[in-house]
């Protein structure tokens, strides 16, 4: 019994951290009012970048760092164009998603070619010996850090104000653009790290399309926990366990392995529906101006 619990905790640690970071980063960005539909594309790109850098340099920290930087740049770009220009957040996000898919394949394939020719991939394995604990430590530190940032600091108040009502926030002296750039930059940096953890600590293989769809699961994890940094720990854990054991679940009930592939996606929709029909929705309502075009035309003229 004890052994199986231990192997569970070690087994899900990597995917838990990957999901957690991506979901909490997404939540932070949306708290500032920028609708984030680019998450899946940038997550897929982050996975490919982490893989490629790891193959080229054989360095896990460097791979994680570069995935983080590239993702953060996408976050800054999205926050800038959606705040500075009167354009649809949804359209900007979806186009960035496609760009991310395409770039991911182009970045990953040359490295995959090298790998086929014998180069190896630097990975990090959560083992029973000790490394697994750090996956949880990082998740909890980030959880408390982001929670403190959003709920207890001035910057957090500004982020929430920019998400609820950017025009009033601006009138009260908040620089909405700066706040959104900050939230989206940090948020996407976390998504980038999550993607690197996903690739280097969890799947540890890459082929074209690796990571596609998982960004959407992170989206659902964040939404179903009301974008709350502490509650996301719980929903990320549920999805991590499901992801890790889905093929076992399918095999146990004598179902085809494709049922296992499908489970996280069905659960993602179920989680979002549960969030919408239960009182959770009222208690953890999304920011009022999420995805609304905020544009200071009149003031600049």
């Amino acid at each position: 019994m004890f052994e199986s619990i231990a192997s569970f905790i070690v087994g899900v640690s990597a995917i838990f951290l990957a999901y957690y970071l991506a979901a909490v980063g997404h939540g932070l960005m949306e708290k500032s009012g920028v609708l984030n539909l680019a998450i899946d594309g940038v997550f897929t790109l982050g996975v490919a970048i982490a893989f490629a850098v790891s193959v080229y340099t054989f360095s896990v920290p460097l791979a994680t760092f570069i995935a983080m930087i590239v993702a953060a740049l996408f976050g800054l770009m999205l926050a800038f164009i959606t705040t500075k220009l009167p354009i649809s957040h949804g359209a900007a996000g979806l186009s960035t998603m496609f760009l991310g898919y395409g770039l991911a394949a182009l970045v990953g394939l040359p490295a995959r070619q090298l790998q086929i020719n014998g180069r190896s991939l630097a990975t990090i394995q959560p083992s029973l010996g000790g490394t697994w604990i750090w996956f949880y430590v990082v998740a909890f530190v980030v959880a408390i850090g982001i929670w403190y940032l959003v709920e207890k600091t001035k910057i957090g108040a500004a982020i929430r104000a920019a998400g609820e009502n950017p025009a009033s926030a601006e009138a009260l002296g908040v620089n909405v653009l700066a706040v959104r750039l900050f939230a989206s930059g940090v948020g996407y940096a976390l998504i980038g790290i999550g993607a690197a953890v996903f690739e280097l600590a969890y799947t540890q293989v890459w082929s074209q399309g690796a990571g596609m769809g998982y960004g959407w699961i992170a989206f659902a994890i964040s939404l179903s926990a009301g974008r709350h940094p502490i509650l996301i720990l719980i929903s990320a854990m549920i999805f991590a366990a499901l992801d890790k054991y889905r093929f076992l679940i399918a095999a146990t009930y004598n179902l085809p392995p494709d049922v296992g592939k499908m489970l996280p996606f069905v659960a993602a929709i179920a989680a979002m529906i549960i969030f919408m029909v239960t009182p959770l929705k009222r208690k953890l309502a999304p920011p009022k101006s999420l995805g609304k075009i905020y544009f200071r035309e009149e003031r600049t003229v």
Partner: protein
Amino acid sequence: MVIVRRVKPLPYWIIPIIALLAGIAISVIILYVLMGASPAAVLSAIVYGFTRPGVVAKTFVALTIVGIALLVSFKGSIWNIGGEGQITFGLMAATWVALFTALPYINPGLAQVSMILLAMVAGGIWALLAALPRAYLGLDEVPVTLIMNYIAYYIVDILVRGPWLGKHVYNYIRTDTIPAQVMFPQVPGTTMTWDGLFLLIILFVGVWYLLRNTSIGLRIRILGNNPNLLRSSGISVPLMIIVALTISGFIAGSVGALYLGGDVYRISYPVEAHTANYGYTGILVAWLSMLELIAVPIAAYIVSALYTAGIQYQILVGGHLGQLLTAGSAIVDVFIGSILLMYTILITISEYKIKIIVKR
């Protein structure tokens, strides 16, 4: 930077053209930087795409139909990103008719019509499932329709690996090839089929009539501009959301039948690696058309030329990476992404002037 509203908006066709050119330029740069692809080779692949209407025809028909389908829901501000799943469901339904009923041997013509009709029904049902939580719970349709694409893939995967696994497939995991009677006849000199061409014309006229002359069409358009007006005139907004999304899925589903009967003739496992990605590419068509039905075929021709160019580039010049790229999606995705992003940003300048003012 100061942004000022224009007194008179620019003509609507200017933005798609500028966006297209800027997006192609960006794609060429990206392909050069990341793959070392020579710009001349990429551009010549694009020229190839634009100058071979016969080759492009198959993609053109599919993308026009998907563009029309998405237009119906986009007009109502319902962002149906689930075309891919609806097409996959259509593919599944058409395969069932072709392989598991006696219809192809009794009456091939009727079988082909049933393949298309049942594919449409299947696509409509799949869209309806996404429409219900959107209409009654207010759950954003974008993540739901997108996630449902993956579910649709895996449902078909389960069938192909399980009960639908073919008997004459050697060691491949795929269904049997559909009977020759229900392979759609091709229009000579092109890659498109007569079935596809007729379907395209019927759907184009049908949607034109729907949007212009029926109360449903009017209500969908009002849903997009001012749902409160619908509510105050006593028309159920959730019902209109369901109607818009279901019609959209209904039309998109037919592309699944065309893909089966005129292109692949069987489903190969895993279906997500063998899809043509028409559902995603169609989003570009619908947006570039500025939601004008008449502009959909034009946008579809441009996008299908680029689509063909991406695949052509991969076949001819992809070199050592060519064998690793699957389903031609990577380069196409770069094209779609950069053009759409340029379009999204540039749409601003149709109504606003951007002035850069240097502070002294």
